[in-house]
């Protein structure tokens, strides 16, 4: 009897030879390589570890945001890179000149400030029309409502123009009301939601909770505003908040008003990929125009002195970043596992159509996901910018590295994103032990190809 017996199609090429020897051989090779390096210079080894972990945490952050989006909508959003760059440049724009007297020099034109003001006004009015207007237009006179919206828009617009044209040293004064309001809203929302989560929803209790939440929010907001008002140097940290916030809204807007329509009109996810590529291109070019293609450095927030551990240098800022990234990671995990929002995200991730049928407002949920991811990207850009010079293209490179990190760690898996980020950072830095630093990119993409060939699903399985 004819029996052409074939083995199952190998998931990776070398499974043909056998499942485990490859992993073991590689692990041993890597270990040997590391031991050799350690032997050559223990402090050097430690330095490389520090460098690897430092940049790795940034890669991890970028990868987490990237995975969040990809894992939910299953297409690649290349504007993510632009968001990262935006974070870096926002900090530069808002805080740069205070420390270095450069920055907005070429741009401090009233025309540009006015443009931004108008932009903010328009966006505010649109946002107002989308939510509060629709919600309350049956209860309150429409003209009045529109009037309030217009007033808010104009106020915010004028505020923005004024703020952008303001003197550096006065920045914190102008910033504080905005921060106050924003933090009040945020705190109120969080407070309200948390309290809701702990109680059953009886109408009477709801009212009390609402007012408690709002009250708490107001108080927190005033405190924050006051703090910033009184502390001249604090605005540097605020730019860290403003940058990601801006990026977040931009990311949300892009999904809501661009990507959704592209998805409807094209047959596969390639349309959105190309569309986001076009936007990335445009954003990068715009940044080139505004900030020039030359590298810029961000102000040192924590001071540039390093501490020495075991003969290797590390800056306190880098330690801060690692801790921050870990905290953010935990926060995202909590968000995904313990909240209703997270459940909705996972439902959409598993099957978008079914999620829609079950009544989940996919558009809203995904918009929020985009917001969070863009904010994370911007934060990554900010962190990156503190240590390295930023150029308009660095966002795209970060995006690619974030993607490589998620491939290594396992696409669609948040844990994998964290793991992959650190692994990439370490591999890059160990890889250039004997080579020029310019070869980092090649090492990164070689790692990518290696993984795609032999471990296409990454180290950790899909969520």
């Amino acid at each position, binding site marked *: 009897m004819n029996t052409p017996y074939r083995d199952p199609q190998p998931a990776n090429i070398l499974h043909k030879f056998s499942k485990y020897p490859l992993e073991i051989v590689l692990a041993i090779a890597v270990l040997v390589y590391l031991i050799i390096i350690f032997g050559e210079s223990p402090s050097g080894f430690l330095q490389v570890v520090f460098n690897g972990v430092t940049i790795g945490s940034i890669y991890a952050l970028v990868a987490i945001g990237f995975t969040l989006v990809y894992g939910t909508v299953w*297409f*690649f959003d290349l504007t993510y890179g632009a968001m990262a760059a935006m974070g870096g440049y926002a900090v530069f724009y808002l805080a740069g000149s205070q420390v270095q007297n450069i920055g907005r020099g070429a741009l401090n034109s009233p025309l540009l400030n006015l443009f931004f003001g108008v932009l903010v006004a328009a966006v505010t009015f649109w946002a107002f029309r989308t939510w509060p207007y629709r919600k309350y237009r049956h209860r309150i006179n429409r003209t009045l409502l529109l009037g309030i919206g217009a007033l808010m828009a104009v106020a915010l617009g004028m505020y923005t123009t004024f703020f952008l044209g303001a003197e550096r040293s006065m920045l914190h004064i102008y910033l504080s009301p905005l921060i106050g309001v924003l933090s009040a809203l945020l705190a109120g929302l969080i407070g309200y939601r948390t309290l809701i989560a702990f109680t059953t929803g009886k109408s009477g209790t709801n009212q009390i909770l609402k007012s408690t939440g709002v009250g708490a929010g107001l108080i927190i907001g005033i405190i924050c505003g006051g703090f910033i008002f009184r502390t001249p140097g604090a605005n540097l940290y605020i730019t860290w908040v403003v940058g990601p916030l801006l990026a977040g809204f931009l990311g949300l807007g892009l999904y809501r008003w*661009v990507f959704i*329509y*592209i998805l409807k*009109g*094209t*047959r*596969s*996810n*390639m*349309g*959105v*990929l*190309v*569309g*986001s*590529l*076009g*936007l*990335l*291109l*445009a*954003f*990068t*070019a*715009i940044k*080139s*125009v505004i900030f020039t293609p030359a590298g810029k450095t961000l102000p040192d927030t924590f001071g540039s002195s390093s501490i020495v551990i075991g003969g290797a240098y590390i800056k306190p800022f880098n330690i801060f970043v690692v801790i921050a990234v870990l905290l953010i990671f935990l926060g995202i995990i909590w968000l995904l596992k313990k909240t209703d929002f997270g459940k909705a995200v996972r439902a959409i991730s598993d099957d978008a159509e079914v999620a829609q049928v079950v009544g989940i407002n996919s558009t809203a949920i995904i918009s929020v996901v985009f917001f969070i991811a863009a904010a994370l990207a911007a934060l990554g850009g900010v962190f990156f910018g503190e240590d390295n010079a930023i150029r308009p293209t660095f966002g795209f490179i970060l995006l*690619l590295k974030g*993607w*490589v990190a998620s491939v290594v760690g396992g696409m669609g898996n948040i844990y994998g994103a964290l793991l992959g980020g650190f692994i990439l950072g370490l591999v890059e830095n160990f890889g250039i032990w004997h080579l*020029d630093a*310019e*070869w980092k*990119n*090649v090492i990164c*993409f*070689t790692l*990518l*190809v290696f993984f*795609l*060939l032999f471990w*296409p699903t990454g180290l950790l399985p899909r969520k």
Partner: protein
Amino acid sequence: MPQTANADGKSTASPSKHLKARVRNNIELLLILVLAAISLAFMATQSFGFAVRLIQIFCIWAILAVSLNLLIGYTGLLSMAHVGFFGIGAYSVAILTTNPAYQSLSTDTIPIIALPFFAALPIGMLLAGLFALLVGSVLSRFRDDIFVLVSFSVAIIAHNVLVNWRSVTRGPFGIHAIARPDLGFWAADGRVEFAIVSLIFLALVIYVCWLIVSSSFGRVLIAIREDEDAIQVFGYKATLFKLAVWVISAMMAALAGALVASDQTFIDPNSFILLESIMMVAIVIMGGLGSIRGSVLGAMIFVLLQEGLRFVPFIPQGYVGQTRMIIFGLLLTALMLFRPQGLIGRYKL
């Protein structure tokens, strides 16, 4: 385009469809002619040398676009790696034909082989083809989005290698004294002669592409794009077909690279960055997927935009490149939003 003709070669479509198709074809040709007329008029206002320059640049981009369209438009492979093969062609010809006289000018020297252009050209194309075979067999296991991102990496690696492998490429210093086409009795020493050579090659490339897409092979490519699993059920090894068109397209890109190298007689890695690949993709998509004419049109528009922007008054000179990028980027997104098949394309992404 797949043929829909009966035995005598006449279209079997109903009269109104026939008419519509004819009108459509005519409009496309008209568009190209009008554009060509505008460009000629524009060039006439400048010097003759400028016009020749423009035609030369157009030929290169047209070859690149037409060859890339085979991948993106017909087969559905959105490759960002095209610039890599472009670079291989350019550097192969550069290394093989460079003249010893200039080597002493810098510290990085490369081996001197000094072949004539027409000998180096096929070698360059072959090298690109082999490299494409290698890369393609790795890439063919990826679909859609991941394919795109991996092809990004290929382009970045290629550029990095060009910059860093100085013993072969002389890195950032570039390579000088690249030979011009020389047949012994006639040499393309001047710009005009070279432009003619480029036009001839462009015509050849277009012809070969037309042969490919109008054959059964072309139809299979489209089927692969539409539904790769379904076409395999009917006995086609999609991987082989994809590899074949990938290699062909790479060799054409290498041809364009060779022409660029020879035309400028100098190249350096800056002409082979990832951005160029993105531009190529933008041109193909803008001109229209699955349409050779579309790619030609796209290249025309691109070149006009590139050079025409110089003359727009309120854009400062240093920002022309950036402005072009902004326009192209927004154009790409707008296309995806409002016209995913491009200007005169036959298929949507």
